[in-house]
């Protein structure tokens, strides 16, 4: 018996590693080990007001900060019977577009691309792909700017609130974002072309199930009240527990999820599989050009999906900002009750994020947060194990196997900090 290890797993958010346990050439297990400690956020917010909860829960993560804010808002507003005005809804769409560009640009160009091009890091890539590194920085900076304008700060902005926003941006700010988003479209196109031209290994391929929100009005989007499943089913977001039966495993400080006792995936790939046909513009054209049955089997294609999605996000901004600028600043909508329950489901860059709250007499009674990475962990391990088995059967070297496994884990763009927001360990 011997083990192969990747510790730490770099170019992901948080502290994790990979362990492959071998018995001769037979792979006994492949685990994505989560070392980051539990953070107990769900217990921390019990007894808080919804407003305080809304300030605390985004601190789960500085990468997906606005996704946590938005999921929390959607859950709390349902619980309290708040119907936010249309301008607030559009602003929330815009802030999510900004976060998507910020996160996907960094992941595609800087964290994932070096592996595919054979470089140890983005730094090593700089001499040959300097322009692409600069593209990534330009896109990330712009994503950060959109987040700052909409939420008030680059990280943990407090402008979005229950029933609306503290302050709405000026028309000038909106027209600047519209102009800049158009200017940056070629950078996103370059990302799509790069990832569309890469060779994707067949070793990790296996059928799995994909889940995403069902965005309203039959459009591609990042929030919705129901969940689309690639097997053709659709489930109300309030029934999220049926989709994410959670459990604890010894090697992880993050919970795991299964659907019908099988692994499933969430993320850009899942969004493309479930809603890609709704894309228009250049993003729609690229989706049609690149989409194939391999998307249903190969997790590495999540990188290409992220690139197409980043292009979609930029293409959405002119219309979205114009809509924001055209509407009067509304007052915040007020709660219509102090006791109730609600679930918010949004698409963080790395997949569906659920926030569920039970509010009693104006205070949080229970909170349940299920992050995309927690949903993906079992699926990552499934693909990694298959990949390791196949590569070792083909007499591939240990270093090649480990790199392939790292690429699989990284393709999901995991956020380990998010995934360890709560876990209960039972020692027998």
């Amino acid at each position: 018996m011997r083990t192969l290890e990747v510790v730490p797993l770099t170019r992901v958010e948080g502290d994790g590693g990979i362990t492959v346990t071998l018995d001769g050439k037979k792979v006994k297990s492949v685990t994505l080990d989560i070392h980051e400690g539990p953070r107990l956020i769900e217990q921390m917010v019990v007894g808080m007001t919804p407003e305080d909860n809304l300030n605390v829960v985004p601190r789960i993560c500085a990468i997906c900060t606005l996704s946590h804010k938005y999921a929390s808002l959607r859950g709390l507003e349902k619980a309290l019977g708040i119907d936010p005005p249309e301008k607030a809804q559009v602003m929330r769409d815009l802030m999510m577009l900004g976060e998507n560009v910020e996160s996907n640009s960094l992941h595609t160009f800087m964290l994932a691309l070096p592996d595919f091009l054979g470089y140890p890091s983005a730094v090593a890539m700089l001499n040959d792909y300097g322009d692409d590194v600069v593209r990534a920085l330009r896109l990330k900076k712009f994503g950060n700017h959109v987040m700052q304008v909409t939420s008030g700060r680059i990280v943990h902005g407090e402008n979005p609130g229950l029933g609306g926003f503290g302050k709405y941006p000026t028309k000038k700010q909106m027209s600047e974002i519209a102009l800049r988003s158009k200017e940056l479209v070629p950078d996103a196109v370059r990302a799509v072309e790069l990832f569309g031209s890469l060779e994707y290994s067949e070793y990790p391929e296996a059928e799995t199930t994909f889940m995403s929100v069902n965005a309203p009005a039959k459009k591609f989007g990042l929030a919705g009240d129901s969940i689309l499943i690639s097997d053709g089913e659709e489930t109300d977001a309030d029934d999220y527990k049926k989709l994410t039966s959670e459990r604890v495993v010894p090697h992880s400080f993050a919970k795991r999820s299964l659907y019908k006792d099988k692994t499933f995936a969430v993320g850009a790939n899942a969004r493309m599989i479930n809603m890609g046909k709704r894309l228009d513009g250049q993003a729609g054209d690229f989706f049609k050009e690149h989409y194939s049955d391999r998307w249903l089997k190969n997790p590495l294609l999540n990188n290409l999906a992220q690139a197409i999605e980043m292009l979609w996000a930029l293409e959405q901004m002119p219309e979205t900002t114009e809509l924001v600028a055209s509407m009067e600043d509304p007052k915040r909508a007020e709660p219509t009750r102090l006791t109730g329950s609600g679930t918010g489901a949004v698409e963080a860059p790395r997949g569906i994020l659920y926030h569920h709250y039970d509010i009693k007499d104006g205070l949080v009674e229970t909170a349940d947060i299920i992050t995309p990475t927690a949903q993906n962990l079992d699926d990552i391990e499934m693909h990694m194990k298959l990949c390791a088995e196949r590569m070792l059967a083909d007499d591939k070297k240990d270093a090649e196997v480990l790199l392939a496994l790292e690429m699989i884990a990284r393709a999901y763009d995991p956020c380990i900090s998010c995934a360890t927001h709560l876990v209960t360990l039972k020692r027998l």
Partner: protein
Amino acid sequence: MHKLRHTPGDPEEALTEAVETVVGEGPVYVLGLGYVDKADDGAGVLVANTLKKTFPDYSFSEHDGVEGVVLDISQKTGPGTVLFVDAGDLKAPPGTIGIVTRDQIKDTEISTHRVPVALMAAIIERSGKKVAIVAIQPKCLEFRAEVSQEVGRSVAAVVATLSRLMQERNG
């Protein structure tokens, strides 16, 4: 190997001399890194925020989106120097200040979803500017704890030194 280990109580001239060895021609930019809610970890941000009051166009912190700032600086023509200021484990007494030169910034990829300092340094260097890190040895990294006295004194020393330098270089 660090150019200098300035310990609390050392004359500031020594720190000034050490910093000047890594500064080239043109203006000096300061980028403060760290997490202010974790006591001494926020030393770099404290330095940058203090300098920003006098040099708003030359001093930036984590909260300004450092990757974007790096991009903007790298697109400016002409020479200059970017000094990252951050808490760093120098294996030295708390408050020790170390100057980490460009060749000592390793291409290590810490496990996080952000642009590595080594990459930002490389991008700045490509634009013809110099880069170094001013590191301060932390004592306390506890959440919501106060900045330690040792690091507080070093933050003041770094601010005084960089302030004089930026006054000379940046006008």
